[in-house]
């Protein structure tokens, strides 16, 4: 069905209001665009009229791209409407509480106003206003010095996470025009999953790729939905996002069960949909469920022998035959640790009674079309790679893969965006490191090797990181981990010699800038973006400027173009195009591939185009014809046993705590439940929060008022500590301490406490370093996961006490 594609806005729409607004602005056009005099002025424009509706789109990293209709009066957004086109029950990308507060961000007194340079110690957040010319000249001088002295491998980028559009995030393009940079593979969201999938479904499989996972809409055809750490109501919150699909799936009568240490908002009103579990033990539950499938005779051997490698001896590769190394040997206790993975074995690990595990196994065995999906939290643990693989074993062993209503165990599929970002071009530097290893690369880069630290494209790094770009990214401290240890590395400006931060507000990461540049909000310039990466529909939005950029803020594309010009690569970077011309160019390419998209001029007037998307079934092609559609694994099949993983386990230099096995086994992992001590007797898991998208929006009082930052603690654990609902408590891990309000609630399993991620770190780093902001990453260990070398975000051991 095509929805509402030709409907014109009901209201007056004035094209290109920016010029009029800019002239009306206090600073005047000269200083607004004062960086490079040859920069083209914004085109067209009439004075903003009363009740003007300006279309736009949210731009943070939640997976959605909700629609805005800014109501603009006298050059200011006065309120926003969202997507109200078409039927309310149909696809409507309705903005969540955060998007509904966007104008308070755009007009927030904390917006960065001018280019600034550091004047105190690094990290002290003492800055002094400078001109755009001085800022650009300083950056260019330092960048040239870094490349000349250390080579391009000494330059790295913390990419765009909070201010997306297709012409935003051109930092990699800029650096690739300048000889390249040290890239970071994978990201904080899904790194362990990516590496787990690689050895299960092949390197072409990605965490949201619809060839390998089903859309959530396909669960409408399921009769039992089993979700591990998958909480759309707090991670996919927009009106066209997964939370809406989940609601429709329930309304259709599909039975739903969430495996989660916390009764998340996704089970609101339906407590029977929650099965509490000790955090980090999903793979143990899986092993016990598979055990039941086997003893109940429900393992689909035809499927396993046709489509998979290594379930039992029959399909083991030559290198591993006759050694009791199959998955069945692991489950039945005839191989590996020689322990049978009965529900009684799983009881003390997962805290789930054996009878309940058997009940869940029966539900899965009886389901005609089980839709089994993990979120991204199950794998964000120190044992995350194996956990991702393990959850995928449930549908695989049952042979319920590639068929209507089923899923492969991965997170629900993402759609393909109809318009691409401005190309990043090829990176001449082939060396890369994991997203979680950059602090080590600053601290001791030349000591980092392929076999110990996961360096790719070379045996070792040739240099440490000396120049760091940070664009719309709060992952230097706040969204990274081990904030205290990271701080110590960052403040030494003989290690990383220069840090440039481009952002809209002074995040904790921005405090470490040597040069700090004010980015414009997407509401302040023309921009184009599509449906969000997690929203199952096809959409395109042409955003117009609703306001003039605040003070001297500039769109980052224009900043990068100015830097490129001074670096002598202006033409290579811009290809002669302005932001608006890039939008036209990329959109023209999109229309060549998909001529049903409206013409650009129509889209500009209409603001927004959307249409439904047919459901996808993960591994449908492979299952229907495995010979014609083999997987990209070495065997072309689903690799339950992976020879590649065995080779890695044999060749990599691993700490004794870093377990890599060729099959998806359970390992408690570092700072898992077997590491609990008298000093740190509780597990602590982060979770995504309604009041923020990661750390975006985290500074806004209007949202905080009804989204209090709290540690969730079960009444049993609170009582033994004398902790009362609402009081400030201390949460300590081996890596740091936060002070935070206690929420004493039956909604979390005893033995586990939960802190929502993304709160703004707030500590006296020259003093006691106690984080009064309650940022969970203050507590997180620096150690990367064994295989992906990635963040183990939810593996934290703590004590909670009265403050």
């Amino acid at each position, binding site marked *: 069905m095509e929805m509402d594609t030709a409907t014109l806005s009901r209201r007056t729409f004035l094209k290109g209001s920016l010029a009029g607004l800019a002239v009306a602005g206090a600073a005047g056009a000269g200083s607004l665009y004062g960086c490079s005099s040859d920069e083209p002025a914004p085109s067209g424009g009439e004075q903003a009229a009363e009740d003007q509706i300006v279309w736009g789109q949210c731009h943070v990293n939640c997976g959605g791209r909700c629609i805005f209709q800014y109501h603009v009066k006298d050059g200011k957004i006065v*309120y926003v*409407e*969202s997507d*109200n086109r078409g039927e*309310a029950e149909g696809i409507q990308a*309705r*903005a*969540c*509480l*955060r998007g*509904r*507060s966007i*104008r*308070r961000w755009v007009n927030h007194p904390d917006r960065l106003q001018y280019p600034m340079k550091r004047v105190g110690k690094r990290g002290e957040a003492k800055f002094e206003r400078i001109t755009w010319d001085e800022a650009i000249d300083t950056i260019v001088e330092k960048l040239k010095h870094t490349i000349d002295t250390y080579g391009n491998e000494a330059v790295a980028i913390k990419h765009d996470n909070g201010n997306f559009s297709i012409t935003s995030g051109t930092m990699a393009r800029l650096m690739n025009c300048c000889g390249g940079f040290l890239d970071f593979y994978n990201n904080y969201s899904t790194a362990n999953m990516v590496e787990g999938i690689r050895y299960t479904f092949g390197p072409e499989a990605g965490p949201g790729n619809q060839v390998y996972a089903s859309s959530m809409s396909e669960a409408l055809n399921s009769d039992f939905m089993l979700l591990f750490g998958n909480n759309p*109501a*707090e991670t996919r*919150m*927009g*009106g066209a*996002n997964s*939370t*809406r699909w989940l*609601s429709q799936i*329930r*309304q259709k009568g599909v039975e739903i069960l969430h495996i989660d240490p916390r*009764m998340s*908002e*996704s*089970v*609101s*009103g*339906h*407590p*029977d949909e*929650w099965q*509490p579990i000790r955090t980090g033990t999903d793979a143990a539950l899986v092993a016990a469920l598979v055990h039941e499938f086997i003893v109940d005779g429900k393992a689909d051997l035809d499927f396993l022998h046709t489509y998979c490698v290594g379930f039992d001896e029959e399909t083991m590769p030559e290198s591993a035959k006759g050694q009791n190394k199959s998955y069945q040997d692991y489950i039945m206790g005839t191989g590996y640790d020689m322990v049978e993975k009965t529900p*009684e074995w799983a*009881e*003390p690990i997962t*805290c789930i*009674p*054996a009878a309940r595990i058997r009940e869940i196994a029966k539900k899965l065995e009886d389901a005609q079309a089980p839709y089994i999906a993990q979120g991204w939290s199950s794998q964000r643990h120190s044992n995350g790679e194996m956990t991702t693989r393990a959850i995928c074993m449930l549908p695989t062993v049952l042979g319920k893969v590639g068929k209507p209503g089923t899923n492969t165990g991965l997170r629900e599929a993402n759609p393909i965006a109809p318009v691409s970002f401005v190309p990043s071009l090829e990176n001449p530097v082939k060396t890369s490191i994991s997203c979680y290893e950059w602090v080590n690369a600053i601290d001791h880069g030349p000591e980092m090797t392929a076999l110990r630290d996961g360096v790719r494209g070379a045996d070792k790094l040739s240099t440490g990181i000396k120049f760091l770009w940070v664009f719309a990214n709060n992952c230097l401290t706040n969204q990274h981990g081990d904030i205290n240890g990271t701080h110590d590395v960052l403040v030494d400006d003989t290690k990383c010699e220069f840090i440039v931060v481009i952002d809209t507000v002074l995040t904790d990461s921005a405090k470490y800038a040597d040069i700090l540049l004010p980015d414009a909000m997407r509401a302040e310039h023309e921009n184009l973006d599509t449906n969000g990466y997690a929203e199952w529909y096809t959409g395109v939005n042409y955003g117009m400027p609703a306001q003039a950029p605040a003070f001297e803020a500039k769109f980052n594309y224009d900043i990068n173009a100015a830097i490129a010009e001074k670096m002598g690569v202006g033409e290579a970077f811009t290809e002669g195009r302005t932001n608006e011309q890039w939008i036209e160019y990329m959109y023209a390419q999109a229309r060549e591939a998909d001529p049903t998209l409206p013409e650009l001029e129509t889209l500009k007037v209409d603001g927004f185009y959307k249409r439904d998307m047919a459901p996808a079934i993960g591994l449908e092609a492979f299952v229907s014809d495995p010979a014609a559609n083999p997987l990209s694994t070495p065997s072309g099949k689903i690799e339950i046993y992976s020879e590649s993983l065995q080779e890695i386990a044999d060749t990599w230099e691993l700490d004794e705590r870093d377990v890599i096995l060729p099959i998806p086994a359970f390992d408690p992992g570092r700072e898992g439940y077997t590491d609990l001590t008298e000093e740190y007797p509780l597990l602590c898991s982060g979770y995504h929060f*309604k009041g923020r998208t990661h750390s975006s929006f985290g500074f806004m*009082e*209007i*949202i905080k*008022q*009804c*989204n*209090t930052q709290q540690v969730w603690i079960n*009444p*049993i654990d609170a009582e033994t500590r004398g902790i009362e*609902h*609402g009081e400030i408590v201390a949460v300590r891990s081996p890596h740091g301490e936060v002070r935070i309000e206690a*929420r004493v*609630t*039956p*909604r979390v*399993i*005893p033995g586990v406490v939960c802190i929502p991620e993304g709160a703004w770190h707030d500590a006296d780093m020259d003093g006691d370093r106690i984080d009064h902001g309650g940022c969970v990453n203050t507590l997180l260990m620096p150690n990367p996961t064994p295989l992906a070398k990635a963040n183990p975000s939810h593996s934290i051991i703590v004590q909670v006490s009265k403050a």
Partner: protein
Amino acid sequence: MTQYGFYFDSTRCTGCKTCTLACKDKKDLPTNLVYRKVFDYEGGMWEQGANGTYQTTAFMYHLSLACNHCENPACLENCPTGSISKDEATGAVISGAEETCIGCGTCVQVCPYGVPAVNPDTEKSVKCDMCIDLVAAGKQPICVESCPLRALEFGPVEELRAAHPDAVDGIAPMPAGTETVPAIVIATCPAAKMPGDTEGFVANEWEVAAN
């Protein structure tokens, strides 16, 4: 007069508070004023079993509540200056008349649902007005149109009651047995407790107590 009102579906609500913030955006409210509140209502026990296992009766649901635009509003009946009225077209209860409201707070005291507040800056009674300007223009109140889960509806309250015959006019933590005849229609989720319930508690009291 046709009495208009809200329908709230507690089976769909995830407590996201988009309605709260959409209202605050449209009405340009400061941090300390909230016209539509979302209550987190929860309860239940935990029991430790053998072998380190746990079982629980934990439950939780949300209630999104603005002004119920009662047919017999206590606020209107008790206002000493006659500054509260019912809109002829919709039955919307409108408080804080510019000329006469003295900000005495009587409405705050007498409303069984704790809806009105006195704006500390203007010293006038303030609360949800059903977005009467939008409704007059043929649109929905901003909260209804904002809900990502489509858990809110708006219309003539008799039509809402007819469309949702199993719905009730109150769930906990709303008070039991008020005589104001609230124009509210609520679909009950499996976890829902009736007004007067003592099993559960409001877990976010400080968030909904603002103003």
